[in-house]
């Protein structure tokens, strides 16, 4: 009880201290929260230095307090800090990528026309998994130019609880990004790794990690200290926004 009282008395004081920073006026500079959001880039090269355990625990807290549909919190985290295990996972996924490259990558596959046929069917069935970007990533990973977790010392796997309310997968995304932003605000680098899907192609990792109903592996987040300063503000393409107001419709960029 005393603890909650303390929090109540402390909160307004903190708010007043930063009120100026967090009060919007037109054209104001980015506040620290916005800055973390805007400057976050996917980091793909990490130092060998391990992330302290307490810091990872702190990041997981940010995930625990994410919003979810009906407060169902349909997630489960797995933290992997065992370098040998990470290497094994990378090898496992690389092998699967090699297999997919052999059957689907028509430009390099010795199967030639047959690979072209397979890919044309495959892309129509798995339109998102074989989108041009992951399609070329399969080749890059198979060739060993890109490692699954980019050499990160810590990996958080996010599992969804299939029984969650509404869209459990989306809730996993929300809680994952909470953790990612918290990590970047604390000087770490992160990268979302969707290719962990390939760990499910076979029983080795599903057994070892204990992934079975009602859980399903959704995403991985690689965490580590980045090499250099990969974070920064960049240019992005504008997206058209449809704007409905006062009975009228306009498109803003």
């Amino acid at each position, binding site marked *: 009880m005393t603890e909650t009282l303390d929090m109540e008395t402390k909160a307004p004081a903190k708010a007043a201290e930063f009120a100026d920073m967090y009060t919007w006026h037109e054209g104001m500079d980015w506040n620290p929260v916005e800055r973390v959001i805007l400057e976050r880039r996917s980091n793909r090269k990490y130092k060998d230095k391990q992330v302290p355990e307490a810091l990872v625990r702190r990041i997981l807290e940010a995930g625990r307090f994410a919003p979810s549909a009906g407060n169902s919190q349909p997630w489960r985290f797995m933290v992997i800090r065992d370098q040998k295990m990470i290497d094994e996972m990378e090898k496992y996924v690389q092998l699967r990528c090699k297999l997919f490259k052999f059957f689907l990558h028509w430009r390099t596959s010795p199967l030639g026309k047959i690979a072209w046929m397979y890919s044309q069917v495959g*892309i129509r069935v798995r339109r998102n998994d074989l989108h041009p970007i992951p399609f070329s990533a399969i080749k890059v990973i198979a060739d060993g130019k890109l490692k699954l977790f980019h050499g990160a010392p810590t990996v958080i796997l996010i599992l969804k609880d299939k029984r969650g309310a509404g869209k459990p997968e989306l809730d996993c995304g929300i809680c994952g990004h909470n953790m990612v932003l918290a990590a970047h605000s604390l000087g770490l680098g992160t990268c979302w790794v969707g290719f962990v899907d390939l760990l499910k192609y076979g029983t080795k990792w599903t057994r070892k990690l204990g992934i079975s109903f009602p859980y399903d592996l959704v995403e991985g987040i690689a965490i580590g200290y980045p090499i250099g300063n990969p974070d920064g503000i960049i240019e992005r393409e504008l997206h058209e926004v449809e704007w409905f107001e006062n009975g009228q419709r306009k498109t803003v960029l």
Partner: protein
Amino acid sequence: MAYLTWKEKLSVPTYDNPAYARSGRVEIDKEKCNGCGNCALICPSACLYVAGVGKNKKAYLMDDDFPECMSCNDCMAMCERDAIKVSQYYDFGLYYKVLHRGDLAPPRNF
């Protein structure tokens, strides 16, 4: 109103046909670049490389007609000399046609 025609919906692009697809591209300012290779180090699709010796050491985009650049602009964030940035974002056309986008712009503080 349909955003994709039936033909587009059913046609899977071959991903590298210049008739309807374009890759991501970066522009490298050769004056500013000092060939440190940081961009090549972090490029997720390994489509940048460094070549040359001494003062002529510069970063280059793969000479491929279709570099695997996904216009993520990570290189721009990494470069300390503002020498590199994405000049064109990818569009693979047909089924994967990019819709409702504008030009490249940094974040705007309204």
